[in-house]
C-alpha cells in the first residue's frame, strides 16, 4: 500500500500543467519593459516544476508519510526534548490576528502581540530567575551567540578585553561554535569522574582573560552539576560571567532556577522546553533571559511597557544591535505562551514526570548497556554501546538503525563526545509508562540480538522505505540538487 519510492516533484513535471489560478492584473496594460526596465527582465522562466494541484497534494502527502514524527511514535532523541506539541497551540499561532500581523505595523496596531510578548517575558523571568528577556534569537544557538555578544559588550563596557570562553568537553557543538562566532577563543575543560565539570581544571583555566563559562545544566550527560554554586563562585571570582545553555531546562522547571544557581544569562529553547514543534529542524526560538547588569546590552528591539500599552524600543545606546530582522520568531512564541498558560504553576509537574520517566527507563535498561556515569539522572541519560561494540562488533549506529525496525526513532548517538559509543535517551514527560516499557523491551531485544544475531543488527534497518543510506558517497560526490535536463522539454 505504501509507495516504495516517491519521484522528485520535478519528475512529475509536464509542461503546461498548473496548480494555481491567479486573477488577471486588471489594470491598464503597460509593457513590462517600461515597468521594470528591459535589462532587468528575466530571460527564461525559472525551471520550477509544472504540476497540477492533485499531483502537488499527493506528492507532499506521500512524503509526509515517509517521515517519523512525535505524532507518529516515540522519539527519545536525547538533548532535543521531543515532547508532544499541543494542537491548541497551533490554532493559537494561526489566529489571523497573529499570523496575519505585519511586523512593520505601527505599535498601536500591535498591542495584542506586544502584550503577549511582555507577559511571556514576565513568565520566562519567573521560571528562570532572571530579570529580562530578549525575543530576538531564532534558535538556541542564536541565543548563545546573542548572549555571548552581550557578555562581550558587558566586559568591554567595563574596559575589559577578555578573550576566552570556557566550555566543558561535554558541551554541545553550538557552544564552541557560538563562542568562535563572537570572536572568542574556546578553552575546553574536561569532566570529572562523576560527569560534573572538573573543578580543578576549571580553576586552572579561570583567569582574567575569561569572559564566560558556558555550562549546560543538567549537562549533556543528563546529570545535574552538583557543584554549580562553587563553579559560579570560581567564575564570578575571576570576573567572568556564567552562561547557561538552557537546552536541558525541561528537567528543572519550578524545581530550581538558573538565576538562583548563579547563572547570569541563559537561552531558552522554546522548541524543547515549551513544547513548540520542531518543524523537522526548525523553526524554533531561543529567547535569552538575563540578569539586570546585562540589560543595557540587550539586542534591539526590546518590548517595553508604555503607559497602559506596550512598545518596541530600538533606541538603546549600549545595545549589541540586532541579530535578525523584526522582533523574533513571534509565531513560535505564541505557542510557548499558550503552553505556559495551559500549565501555570503546574509546570513543575512536567519536570517531575520527565525526570521520573528517565530514571524509570534507565532502571530498565541498566543491565543491558554500559552506564559510564552511574548516577540518578535528570530528564535524560547516556548509555554506552561499548560492550556491544567490543564483544559483538555491533556499533551504536547499528543499534540505532535497528531501533527503526522496531518502530521507534533512535536516541541521539555519539553525543556527548566524551562517552564512547554514546546512546543518549530522553523520554520526556509526555510519554506513558506503557510506551517506555515497550521501548525498553525493544532495546533489550536488540541487545540480545547483538549476541545472537549481530549481522541483522549490523545491516539494519530492514523495514524502512530505504535501507541504510550511503552517507560517505553522499559527502564524497555531493548531489545537492536536481538539474534540468540539458535540452528543454519534458523531464520524463
Amino acid at each position: 500500500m505504501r509507495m516504495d519510492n516517491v519521484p522528485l516533484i520535478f519528475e512529475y513535471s509536464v509542461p503546461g500543467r498548473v496548480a494555481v489560478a491567479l486573477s488577471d492584473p486588471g489594470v491598464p496594460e503597460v509593457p513590462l519593459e517600461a515597468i521594470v526596465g528591459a535589462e532587468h527582465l528575466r530571460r527564461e522562466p525559472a525551471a520550477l516544476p509544472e504540476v497540477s494541484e492533485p499531483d502537488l497534494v499527493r506528492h507532499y502527502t506521500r512524503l509526509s508519510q515517509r517521515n517519523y514524527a512525535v505524532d507518529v511514535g516515540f522519539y527519545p532523541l536525547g538533548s532535543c526534548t521531543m515532547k508532544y506539541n499541543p494542537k491548541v497551540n497551533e490554532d493559537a499561532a494561526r489566529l489571523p490576528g497573529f499570523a496575519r500581523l505585519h511586523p512593520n505595523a505601527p505599535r498601536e496596531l500591535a498591542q495584542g502581540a506586544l502584550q503577549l510578548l511582555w507577559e511571556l517575558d514576565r513568565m520566562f523571568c519567573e521560571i528562570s530567575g532572571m530579570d529580562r528577556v530578549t525575543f530576538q534569537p531564532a534558535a538556541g544557538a542564536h541565543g548563545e551567540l546573542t548572549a555571548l555578544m552581550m557578555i562581550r559588550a558587558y566586559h568591554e563596557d567595563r574596559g575589559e578585553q577578555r578573550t576566552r570562553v570556557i566550555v566543558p568537553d561535554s558541551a554541545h557543538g553550538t557552544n564552541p561554535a557560538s563562542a568562535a562566532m563572537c570572536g572568542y577563543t574556546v578553552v575546553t575543560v574536561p569532566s570529572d569522574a562523576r560527569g560534573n565539570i572538573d573543578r580543578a581544571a576549571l580553576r586552572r583555566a579561570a583567569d582574567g582573560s575569561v569572559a564566560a563559562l558556558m555550562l549546560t545544566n543538567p549537562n549533556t550527560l543528563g546529570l545535574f552539576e552538583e557543584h554549580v554554586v562553587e563553579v559560579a563562585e570560581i567564575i564570578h571570582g575571576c570576573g567572568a560571567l556564567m552562561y547557561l545553555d538552557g537546552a536541558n531546562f525541561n528537567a528543572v522547571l519550578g524545581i530550581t532556577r538558573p538565576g538562583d544557581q548563579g547563572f547570569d544569562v541563559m537561552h531558552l529553547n522554546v522548541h524543547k522546553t515549551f513544547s513548540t514543534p520542531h518543524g523537522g529542524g526548525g523553526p524554533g526560538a531561543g529567547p535569552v533571559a538575563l540578569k539586570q547588569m546585562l540589560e543595557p546590552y540587550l539586542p534591539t528591539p526590546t518590548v517595553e511597557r508604555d503607559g497602559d500599552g506596550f512598545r518596541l524600543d530600538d533606541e538603546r545606546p549600549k545595545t549589541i544591535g540586532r541579530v535578525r530582522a523584526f522582533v523574533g520568531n513571534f509565531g513560535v512564541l505564541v505557542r510557548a505562551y499558550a503552553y505556559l498558560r495551559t500549565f501555570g504553576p503546574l509546570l513543575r509537574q512536567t519536570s517531575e514526570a520527565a525526570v521520573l520517566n528517565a530514571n524509570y527507563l534507565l532502571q530498565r535498561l541498566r543491565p543491558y548497556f554500559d552506564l559510564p556515569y552511574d548516577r540518578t539522572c535528570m530528564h535524560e541519560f547516556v548509555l554506552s554501546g561499548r560492550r556491544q561494540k567490543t564483544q559483538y562488533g555491533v556499533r551504536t549506529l547499528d543499534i540505532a538503525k535497528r531501533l527503526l525496525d522496531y518502530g521507534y526513532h533512535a536516541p541521539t548517538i555519539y553525543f556527548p563526545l566524551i562517552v564512547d559509543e554514546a546512546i543518549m535517551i530522553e523520554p520526556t514527560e509526555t510519554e506513558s509508562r506503557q510506551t517506555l516499557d515497550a521501548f525498553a523491551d525493544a532495546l533489550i531485544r536488540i541487545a540480545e540480538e547483538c549476541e545472537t544475531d549481530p549481522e541483522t543488527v549490523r545491516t539494519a534497518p530492514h523495514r524502512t522505505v530505504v535501507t541504510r543510506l550511503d552517507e560517505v558517497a553522499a559527502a564524497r560526490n555531493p548531489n545537492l540538487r536536481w538539474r534540468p535536463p540539458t535540452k528543454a522539454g519534458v523531464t520524463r
Partner: protein
Amino acid sequence: MTAPVSWQPHKYLPMTAEERDEMLRAIGCSTVEDLLADIPVQVRLRRALNLPPDLAEADLLAHLRQMADRNGHADRLICFLGGGAYDHWIPSAVWHLAGRAEFYTAYTPYQAEVMQGELQAAYEYQSMLCELTAMEVANASMYDGASAVGEAAVMARDLTKRNAVVVSTAVHPQYREVLRTYTRHLGIRIVEVPYQAGLATPERVAAAVGEQTAAVIVQSPNVFGCIEQGRALAQIAHEAGALLIVAVAEPISLGLLEPPGAYGADIVAGEGQPLGNHLNFGGPYLGMLATREAFVRRMPGRLVGATTDREGRRGFVLTLQTREQHIRREKATSNICTNEALNALAAGIYMAALGRTGMRRVAEVNARRAHYAKQRLCAIPGIRPAFDAPTFNEFVLHLPVAPGDLNARLVEYGFLGGLALGRWYPDLADGWLVCVTEARTRAQIDALADVVAQVVRAS
C-alpha cells in the same frame, strides 16, 4: 522541601498519581524528591512558581483571541505595507501540506531512513531555490534574510581571506544592523556606500572597494523597491577580487527579474517569507542562502544530498556535515543548528504550486499592480516619486503630509498604509514606502488612492 507532593492530572501528562508511585517503587524511591537529590538544597525553589493559573483550553483560546483581535492584522486592514515582509496570497494547499503533523512534529532528520519525506522535500526546495536564483547550490535554510546576509559576509571573508565588506545603504537597514552585529567581533570592517537616486550606483561602489574587500553587498530590489544594476555591480566586485552578495528580501521578484546568478552574484542571501509563509509579526521567516558549487564547503547550514541505499535505491541524507558545529565545533562554518526547515518546506511547496508559469505570472501581477498604484498615487497633487529607478512591487513617494499622520488617517478607512521611511532614513522624512502585491486588487488600489487624495487635499 516545601514542594507540592500532590499530583494533578494534566491532559499533556499521561502519568497518573498511581503510576508515579509504581514507577518510583520500581526504581527504589519513595518520592520524586529522591531523584532530585543532586540539586543543591540552597538553589532549590521553595515555593510554587508564580505564574498565572492554568487555563482550560476553551478559556485559553478565548484569551488569545482577545489579544489577537487587538492587532491590526492584514485580514482587518488592507495592507500596503512592505519593507522586508510581504502580504502575498498563499495557496490553500501549501499549509494543508506543510501543516501535516508528520512534518511539523519531526526533528532534524538525523535518522535518514525514516525521514525520507522531509529530506526529499528539502532537496527539492534546494533545487527550486537554485532554479529561482540561478545559483548552483542552496542550503536547507537559515534563520531569516537578515542573518543570512550576516552569515554570507562571514562566508565571503573565509573564502577571500579579506576583511572588509562594502554594503550599500539601500540594503534594508535591519539587514545592515545584523550584518554589523554578526561581523563586529570577527575583525570584519563594514564600509557603507550611500545610495544615490535610490540605488547603489556603480560609481560609488567602485570608489569604495579595495584590496581588502571580501564582498560587495547589495539588495535588489532594494529597500526602496528599486532594482539595482546587478551586472555592473558584479563586475566591479569581481574586478576587485571581491564577491558579490545579493540580498533578496522579495524573492517573488525573481519570477520576473533577472536572477542574481545570471548577472554574476556569488552568494544570494535572502528572505523566503514571501514564498508561502505568513507575516507572523516578523517570524518565523526563512533565511535563504545560495552560492556557487565551488564555495559549498564554506557554506553555513544544513545541506541535503542524494545518495543510494544498499539496494541502490535513491535516498536523501544530511551531508557535508563536517562544516557544521556538531562535528567541527569552534571551527565550524557557523553555529547554526535549529534552522527554519518547516518554512523552507512551505516555500518549496509554494514554488512547486506556482511552478514555472505561475511564478512568472504572480511576479508580473505584482509589478503591474504596483506600477498602476504608483501612477495613481503620483497623480495626486503634492505627491511625487522619490526615485526614477524602475521598481518591482514597492516604491517610495515624497508626501506633502507626514507619512505617519497619513497612516493614522488611513487606519480609520481600513487601510494599513506604507512605511514611514524617516525613522530609517532621516533624509527621507517625507518618504512613504508603498507596497502593492498581487493580493491587492485594483479596487483596493483605487480606494487607497481616493482616500490618500482626500487626506492630502484636506491637509
